[in-house]
């Protein structure tokens, strides 16, 4: 279980690094490795929080599968994020 979790973390770290590099080249700055590490860890832990919430939402609706409605519920507190997620979902559905 530890090894699997570390694999996921490593994948998130790699992806975070790529995304930061994109932002860096766009804004003509550089990110230190430590900053990328912190952003990666921040993201990984936030994903854990999301996963716990999504599980609870699905369970509350007596489902064993998390679906897009649960994801929209997760974004409910921020209007612009909710709008973005809803539009993306419609795009994907179409």
């Amino acid at each position, binding site marked *: 279980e530890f090894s699997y979790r570390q694999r996921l973390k490593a994948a998130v770290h790699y992806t975070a690094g790529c995304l930061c590099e994109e932002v860096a080249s766009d804004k003509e*700055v550089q990110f*230190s490795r430590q900053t990328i590490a912190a952003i990666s860890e921040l993201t990984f832990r936030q994903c854990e929080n999301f996963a716990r919430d999504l599980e609870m939402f699905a369970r509350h609706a007596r489902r064993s599968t998390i679906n897009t409605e649960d994801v929209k519920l997760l974004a409910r507190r921020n209007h612009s994020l909710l709008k973005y997620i809803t539009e993306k979902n419609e795009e994907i559905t179409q």
Partner: protein
Amino acid sequence: VVEAAIRSVRQAQAEDLTQVDVDQLEKVLPQL
């Protein structure tokens, strides 16, 4: 990730820096 990156960059730019370090991320962490 992108939100954290953009906010950290803005902070670095406000401090006239071209390298984004953990100090900059720390300042934007509460809002994140």
